[in-house]
């Protein structure tokens, strides 16, 4: 089992020019321990407008440790901190030579290597940064909940598809005692394998598009009769959840079955080659809502399924994205804790091919969707609505649409309409949080 530890995260390029408060503080702290050096360094390149800081990552498999000729570098098994034993340090500089992340300083004058020791767990730089650019990423807040990944490496999804990352994340949190349900769609091969081969190590079932919530009901109810509480989790696309399989979903919600239903919404029928679904957004291009001749993409707004699910008054409903994993984790944990009814999580999952963006940009697209309030992160928990991630200064919708070819044909009029839909929907949620 892998172990994960806390690490420092430094925001990119937000250091005030000339600032070195973190280094000064670190030097001071180190001096009080009788050491000379700093584990963190600011670096300013005014010509390039670069103002950043850098420190050790406390790697899980540190190469510095392997390259030390005197065995003086160790990784603490308890707190994960990579430390140098000063008494044994030769001052040879090899650690500095092999660390690709600039995590170790070498001081020729003192013949010593020096690095961040994370102040043994409560780094002081975090507290002094004037722009709050340094934070201690609490590993346990996410990975502490991780179980073994039940999926083999690799997958048959398109390269870079965030649905795979999302599914792995979900399953690692859910753990092995989970029955997984899929339906024909992009994730099918990952969930159900092909032929007699599969890449998953938990029980999984491929249903028809119309039978996912009901099959889950059957499994859950049968095990309940046997006195066993098992987790039944669905991971299906928007075609299954919000279109042809919506009736059974609504039925299961009304019956309040104790299942966790997740829709990875890529806003269309992507596995069949990009046709519109009920969650395809206003103006969005698909092969059945073309942007040519008399047509300018989809004419109507998407079906607001998470809100409809909340209207079923099941114990828990949430929207989530893999780009905000802490938020996602909290929601998964809440969904898993529900023992008296249904949980529904609606996940925005961009489609590289169907939305038209380059492979590395999935997270950028996800973040833009959240930062523009196109896909607000909220939850409904036993009657209470709550926005779980407040966007301080929502960006205009163009910051999202400009990333995606499926919106490339939109003109001002349509953009304004889309903005209007986004505003209206966000305000509705906002008002729900105030009213309930």
């Amino acid at each position, binding site marked *: 089992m892998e172990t994960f530890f806390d690490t420092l995260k430094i925001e990119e390029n937000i250091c005030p020019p000339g600032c070195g408060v973190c280094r000064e503080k670190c030097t001071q702290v180190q001096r009080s321990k009788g050491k000379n050096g700093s584990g963190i360094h600011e670096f300013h390149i005014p010509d390039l407008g670069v103002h950043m800081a850098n420190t050790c990552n406390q790697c899980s498999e540190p190469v510095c440790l392997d390259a030390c000729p005197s065995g003086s570098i160790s990784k603490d098994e308890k707190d994960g901190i990579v430390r140098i034993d000063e008494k044994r340090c030769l001052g040879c500089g090899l650690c500095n030579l092999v660390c690709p992340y600039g995590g170790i300083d070498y001081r020729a004058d003192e013949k010593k290597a020096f690095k961040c020791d994370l102040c043994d767990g409560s780094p002081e730089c975090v507290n002094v940064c004037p722009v709050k650019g340094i934070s201690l990423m609490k590993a346990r807040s996410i990975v502490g909940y991780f179980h073994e990944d039940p999926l083999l490496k690799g997958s048959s999804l398109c390269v870079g598809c965030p649905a795979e990352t999302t599914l792995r994340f979900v399953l690692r949190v859910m753990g092995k005692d989970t029955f997984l349900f899929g339906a024909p769609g992009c994730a099918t091969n990952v969930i*159900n394998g092909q032929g007699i081969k599969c890449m998953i190590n938990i029980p999984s079932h491929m249903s028809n598009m119309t039978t996912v919530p009901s099959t889950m009901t*059957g499994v859950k109810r*049968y095990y309940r009769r046997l006195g066993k509480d098992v987790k039944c989790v669905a991971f299906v696309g928007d075609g299954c959840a919000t279109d042809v399989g919506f009736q059974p979903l609504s039925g*299961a919600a009304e019956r309040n079955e104790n299942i966790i239903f997740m829709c990875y919404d890529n806003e269309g029928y992507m596995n069949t080659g990009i046709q519109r679904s009920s969650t395809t957004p206003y103006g969005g291009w698909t092969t059945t809502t073309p942007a040519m001749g008399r047509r300018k993409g989809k004419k109507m707004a998407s079906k607001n399924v998470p809100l409809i699910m909340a209207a079923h008054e099941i114990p828990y409903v949430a929207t989530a994205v893999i780009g905000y994993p802490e938020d996602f984790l909290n929601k998964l944990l809440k969904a898993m804790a529900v023992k008296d009814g249904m949980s529904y999580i609606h996940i925005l999952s961009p489609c590289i091919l169907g939305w038209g963006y380059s492979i590395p940009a999935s997270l950028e697209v996800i973040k833009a969707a959240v930062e523009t309030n196109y896909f607000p992160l909220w939850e409904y928990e036993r009657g209470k609505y709550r926005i779980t991630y407040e966007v301080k200064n929502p960006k205009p919708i163009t910051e999202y649409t400009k990333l995606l070819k499926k919106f490339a044909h939109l003109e001002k009029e349509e953009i304004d309409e889309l903005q209007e839909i986004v505003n209206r929907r966000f305000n509705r949620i906002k008002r729900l949080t105030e009213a309930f």
Partner: protein
Amino acid sequence: MSSIDLRGQIRVLDGNRAGAYGVLLCKPDVIASYPITPQTPLLETLYKFEAEGLFDPEMVEPEGENSAMGTLIGACAAGGRTFTATSSQGLSFMNDAYLLAAGNRFPIVMAIGMREQVSPHGVISGQQDAVLVKDHGWIQIYTESCQEILDSIIMAYRLAEDEDVLLPVNVCYEGFYLSHHSQRVEIPRQEEVDAFLAPLKGMNRLKWTLEEPMVFSSYTVPPELYTEYRYKMCMAHQRAKAKFDEIDREFAAKFGRSYGGQIEEYRTEDAEIIIVTMGCSTGTAKVVVDRKRDEGVKVGLVKIRMFRPSPKERLIKVLNGKKAIGVIDRNVCYAWNCGHNYIEIKTVLSDLDRPLPVLLDFIAGLGGADITDKHVEKVVERTIDAAKGKTYEPVTWLSLE
């Protein structure tokens, strides 16, 4: 003891209630229900049983028939015994999951309170709903009486869950004629049924568990594997036939009632002509057969109980050497302008010794119409005439005459 617990008693019950007692006696783990006439009272009765504490299954009320079957698929995959019932459009709407159940070899038992299909609409008896799905991979048992509904449900579990079979089974009974018509019914005692079903406990069956994870229903199987699945399913259907005869014999030994297994042969031994029936009109036809026998006519009757898989071998045996066969069909095949059993029997003909018997089809009782003794008499007479060499129409729409 609850006043509705009639186990071990002899009562007058309609087919739905008789069926419900059959289900009660088999103690399913999960029941899913969605109402549709004429089967609705069967499921309602199960709710009464559950409410009164006669048994303790998980009761699920899905929002439609497809989800009802989906629920059973889940429960059955995990290893449970399941039941539901439907009729007509309900069965059509269930089709998506109905196919899944068979393809996955889930031993689900479902009653079909048979009714005509749209269009035109009609809450009327018929067999069209059930015969339409004849090649969807399910075993289908058709019944003649309320007692037979009850008994067939018990036998259906024995057949479905047998490790040599593992296929879903429909127990079919005509709406209103049986579903709402009361007859004398012996309701077995629970211990008797427990003992009858006991052999299933030792049967091998894959179960979907956390301990031994597996994927159910994998995607895009290679053609050779797909073909193998199909072949194995065909073989299971073939094995089910003799198995059903065995189960019937065992049932007769325990409960004193036999239905003949795949088919019931009524006064066929020295018969020269045979009337083929399926479902509740058999009772009327038997009366006519008796009457004609009294007149010295060598007529017998074959009741198709197991419509799927086809009781081919039994039919060949019983029909060999006969002079003429008259089939009464309460259903239609648009393509061939006849009823479905006519096609079935015609297929069997090629395996009979020469000279082949003359084969006639009589479409009757559609749209909730009665099949009366007069109708059956016409059938017998025309079949005799045809046997004597008189020219005849192969297919007669009897009700239109």
